[in-house]
C-alpha cells in the first residue's frame, strides 16, 4: 500500500517573498517566475523535490511537467539533495591548465567520492562543472554559492578542515591584472583602498601591466 505523505507547501508561510518574486514580472510574463521560484526552494532545501515542482506549477498555473521541463534543462537545479557542502570543481580549459584535473583527483581521494556523489551523511558532495568564469584566477572551486579562487594544495586543506567544522570561510576573491597594474596588491586579504588613491596610482602608471 502506498502511504501518502503530506508535505507542507514551501511558500505557505512565505507569502511576502512569493509576492515579491511574482511582482518582479509583468502579469503577461508570470511564467518568468519559474526559475526564481525553483532557486528559492533549492537554496533552502538543496534540491527541488517533485512535490515542490508541483507546488510551483500550481502557483504559476502550469503543468508540473512544464516546470520539470524547465528545471531539467539547466544543470544547476538538483532533483536529488546535494550535500551540506556542495563542492563544484571547474574543469574547463583554463582551470585544467592550472591543475583542475589534479585538484579533482585529490578531492575524490580526500572525500572518498566520485564526481556526482554525495556522502552517506549528506555532508559533502562533489561535482565537476563547466567554466565558472574565474579563468584568470584558476583553478576555482565553488562551495555552495561561494567561489574560492586560485586554489592551492595548502589552502584547500584549510578550506576542507573549516568545512568539516561546519564553518564556511569568506570567499577567496582574487584580482589580478589591472588591480595590480594600478598599484594595488591582489585583492585577497588586501586592506581597503580609497578610490582617490587608485586614481593617483593610475596616473603614475606608465608601464601598463608590465
Amino acid at each position, binding site marked *: 500500500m502506498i502511504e501518502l505523505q503530506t508535505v507542507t507547501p514551501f511558500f505557505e508561510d512565505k507569502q511576502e517573498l512569493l509576492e515579491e518574486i511574482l511582482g518582479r514580472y509583468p502579469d503577461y510574463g508570470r511564467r518568468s517566475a519559474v526559475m526564481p521560484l525553483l532557486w528559492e526552494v533549492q537554496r533552502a532545501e538543496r534540491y527541488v523535490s517533485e512535490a515542490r515542482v508541483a507546488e510551483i506549477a500550481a502557483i504559476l498555473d502550469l503543468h508540473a511537467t512544464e516546470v520539470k521541463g524547465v528545471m531539467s534543462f539547466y544543470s*544547476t537545479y538538483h532533483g536529488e539533495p546535494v550535500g551540506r557542502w556542495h563542492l563544484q570543481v571547474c574543469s*574547463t*580549459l583554463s582551470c585544467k591548465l*592550472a591543475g583542475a584535473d589534479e585538484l579533482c583527483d585529490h578531492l575524490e581521494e580526500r572525500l572518498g567520492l566520485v564526481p556526482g556523489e554525495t556522502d552517506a551523511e549528506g555532508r559533502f558532495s562533489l561535482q565537476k562543472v*563547466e567554466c565558472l568564469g*574565474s579563468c*584568470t584566477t584558476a583553478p576555482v572551486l565553488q562551495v555552495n554559492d561561494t567561489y574560492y579562487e586560485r*586554489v592551492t594544495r595548502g589552502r584547500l586543506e584549510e578550506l576542507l578542515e573549516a568545512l568539516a567544522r561546519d564553518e564556511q570561510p569568506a570567499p577567496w576573491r582574487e584580482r589580478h591584472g589591472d588591480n595590480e597594474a594600478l598599484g594595488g596588491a591582489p585583492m585577497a586579504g588586501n586592506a581597503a583602498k580609497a578610490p582617490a588613491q587608485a586614481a593617483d596610482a593610475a596616473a603614475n602608471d606608465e608601464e601598463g601591466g608590465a
Partner: protein
Amino acid sequence: MADAVAERPKPITSRHDPRFEVTLYRYVGVEGAHTLDAYLEHGGYEAARKALASEPGQIVNTVKASGLRGRGGAGFPAGVKWSFMPPVDGRQRFIVCNADESEPGSCKDRYLMEDDPHQLIEGMLIAGWAIQATKGVLYIRGEYWHAYERLTGAIEEARARGYLGANVLDSGFAFDIVVHRGAGAYICGEETALMNSFEGLRANPRLKPPFPAQAGVYGLPSTINNVTTLASVPHIVEKGADWFSAMGTDDSKGIHHVQISGAVARPGVYEVPMGISYREIIHDLGGGPSSPAKAFIPGGTSCPLFPYDDEHLDMPMDFSAVAKAGSMLGTGAVIVIPEDQCIVDAMYNVTRFYAHESCGKCTPCREGVSTWMPQMYRKLLSGRGTPEDVDVMEDVAKNLRGTAFCPLADAAAWPIQASLQYFRNEYEHLAQHGTPLHPRKDRWLA
C-alpha cells in the same frame, strides 16, 4: 582637407601609450567601490544626468560615432543595433543586459559586476533612455551569486535615492531593472535563448528573424547588449565619442578587456586599447609564457587557436585582422597553451564543454557536437583510435560548420578544425602509438 587628415593624431593602440588611461576597470579590485556613495564620489550618474537632458536619438548617434562594437563576442556595432528599435508605439520596450558570461576563458563581466555594479546600472539606464525602454532585464548566470548580491544591492540603493524608479533624477523618465538568475546553461548567452530562459521556457534558441528589436522579450521590442558594452556607455556619453574612437584601429575602436589565462606568468584582466598586439598582451601584460608555449586562443574557446609564432603574436587585436587570420576576437579571453600540453587532450576538454552545453534542439549539434565528437576524442585518447578516426573527426567537424540551428555547433567545430590544421601530428601520434606525444603532467599549484 588632406592636411587635416594628415594631422589627425595617431590612434592609441598600446597600453604603453602615455595617453592611455584605465577607465572601466579603474575601481575593479578596490574594496568598497561597489557602493552608491563611492560611485557618486568619482562622478557617478553624471553621464546619466547629461543623457537624460539630451534627445534619445542624440545618444544613439554618439554611441554610433564612438564605434563601440559588442563586447560579448560577436562585435556588432552597438549604436546601429540600438537604431533597429521600431518607432515608439506605446508597447513596452526592453533593454536587456546579457550577463550570462559563459564563454570559457572569460571573466571580465563578473569583475565589473562584483566591484563596480553602478557603472553597469548607469549604462543600462542611459541605453534605456536612448531606445526609450522603461524596463531593464539583467540576465546573470546563476553561478555568479556574489555579483547577483552586489547588483541587487546596488539597484536597491539606486531606487531608494531616485537613480532608478518612476521618475529618474527628476527627469520624468521611468526606468527600473529586474535581475534574473540563470541556472547553468551556456546556450543562454545566445540572445534569443536568453529571452526564452527569461520567459520561463527551456532555453532553446529562436529562429531569426524576427530579431529582438521586432520581437524580443515577451515578443516585445527589445535590445540586448553585453555587460561591458553597456558599462562603456556612460564613459562615451561623458567623455564624448572622440575619446573612445581615438583608441584602436579603423575597424575596431575603443577599449577592450583582455582576460589572460593558461600558461602565463601573470594571468589577469587588463583594460587595453583595441589594436594592441597579442605580443603586448601576452608578454608585457601577462608576463610571457610560464613555460614554452605552442598555441594561444585569441578570444575564448569558441575561437580557433593560433600557433604561438611571430606572425600571430604581432597581429593586432582587431575584429577584422583576427578574422582574416582565421579566428575571432571573441570576448578577448586569451588562453595560452604550453608546449607540453597534449593538444588532443586540451581539445577534448573544449569539446566536452560544448557537448555538455548543446541544447539538443537540432540534429547536427545533438548528434555531432553532443555525441560523436566527444566519443571520437575518448576513443583516440584511450589509445584505441586509428588514423581513419582522425579523418572522420575532420569530416564531422566540417559537416558541423553552418549546418546547425544556432552558432553553438560552429563554436565547437571550428576550433577542432584549427587544432587539426596546426597540430595534426599530435592526433596522428595518438592514433599510431596509442599514447599522447605529451603525457599528462601535474599542473596544480603548490
